[in-house]
């Protein structure tokens, strides 16, 4: 019980796919201009990842290793298309705002990474819990970035005005930079720095030591 709980909670902070493994960055910067888009994409990713992990784990003994990547991608891509269709049918405006990024869940490294590294070697229940945890870890990072970007960039949260804008007679001058892609990188970088400062165990060892030639002593 405790072990399965850890499967879910570990990816939230200690093994977070975004801040530790730096996966899924592309969509993390594209959809985080507002909290609502980040939330929708996170939910779609969690659902797709969990179901994909369950299915792949169920048939893991019968997936020939020579075609395992293709089989996984086919299953993931089908689920993504279905999720995209459901969004278009029941949340059309939101799916228009997310544009291609729902379909791009299929290429999100977190999804293939988790099915390849975990679901292929574990029973369905742990695989789905792991998928849920990793999806939630991705969602947390997305929501934190989106929270900062929407609040500072537009003065709103989930579309509701929080900071009174200058244009509407208030005092807050929105930071347009926050709505542009570079700000997502900046916030993400600061977030990774903050997490690794709080958890030194996540700091990676240097891959090489800087070249320092021995001082030549004049004879």
């Amino acid at each position, binding site marked *: 019980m405790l072990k399965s709980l850890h499967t879910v909670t570990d990816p939230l902070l200690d093994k977070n796919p975004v801040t530790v493994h730096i996966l899924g960055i592309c969509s993390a910067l594209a959809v985080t201009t507002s909290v609502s888009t980040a939330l929708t994409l996170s939910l779609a990713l969690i659902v797709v990842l969990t179901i994909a992990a369950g299915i792949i784990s169920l048939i893991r003994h019968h997936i*020939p290793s020579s075609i395992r990547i293709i089989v996984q991608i086919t299953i993931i*891509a*089908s689920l993504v298309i279905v999720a995209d269709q459901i969004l278009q049918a029941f949340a059309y405006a939101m799916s228009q705002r997310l544009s291609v990024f729902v379909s791009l869940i299929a290429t999100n490294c977190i999804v293939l990474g988790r099915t390849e590294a975990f679901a292929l070697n574990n029973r369905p229940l742990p695989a789905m819990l792991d998928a849920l945890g990793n999806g939630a870890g991705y969602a947390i990072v997305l929501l934190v970035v989106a929270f900062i970007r929407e609040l500072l960039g537009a003065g709103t949260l989930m579309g509701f005005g929080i900071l009174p804008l200058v244009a509407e007679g208030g005092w807050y001058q929105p930071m347009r930079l926050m709505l542009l892609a570079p700000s997502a990188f900046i916030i993400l970088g600061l977030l990774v720095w903050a997490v690794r400062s709080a958890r030194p165990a996540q700091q990676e060892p240097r891959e090489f030591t800087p070249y320092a030639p021995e001082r030549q002593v004049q004879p």
Partner: protein
Amino acid sequence: MAADRKPNPWQRFLARPNTDRTKTVGIALLVAIACGLSVSIAAVALRPLIAANIVAERQALMRSMLSGLPGIGEIIAEAGADAVEIAIIDLDAGARTQAFDPADFDPLAIAADPATSTALSRAEDLAGIGRRENFAQAYIVRRDGDLALLVLPIYGNGYQSTIRAYLALETDLTTVAAFTVYEQGETPGLGSRISEPGWQAQWAGKSVSEDGEVVIEVVRDGASGPHEVDGISGASVTGYAVTDMIHFWLGPKGFGPWLDTLRQGGE
């Protein structure tokens, strides 16, 4: 060997080693069939809902376009959705036809049916659409019974997609009230900017024709005069396409004959 103990072919198939070629091909086939089925079922089951969403969005776009026009917004606000009258036009005859019920009119079905569409020769086919439907929709907004605004749905082949747009003309049938692109798949960041309000705003007040000749043009550098619209840098082909589709749809094979009828006071 296993056949003696397990007569079930399915179990025999699963019992094959994963390196077996038959099993590899079989698994690939099964996964493909299962995934294909689930995608198809989802697509077919959800298509009506998605289509309804697209139609609703298009109507909302049309409403927002109309309500933003000076003088037209008030009419819409007063009369509500009924202010916009849908007319079905027989394009060759240049007259309204009552042969169709506007509520059931399906432009795509009309365009796809050889019996109700006309093949265009290369010289005629400015918009690059191949076949043109014989009956097309137009939207009329009236003020006190008189024509106040005419909205023509037009489409044509762009650089890499079909561009669909509404062209709104004022009572003189020459001055553009608004031009709104509601569907396109042009190059993101370049051609796709034709759907940006900023670019579309420069159409208002332009004049499409002079002495009965359609002359409006999307130009590459520095629009001057009432017949030129600034193009988008890096999207020349999209600009040409917009020019050509307006020339086609206002020309003799498009709404031209009906516009002539309207100018002469008929309908």
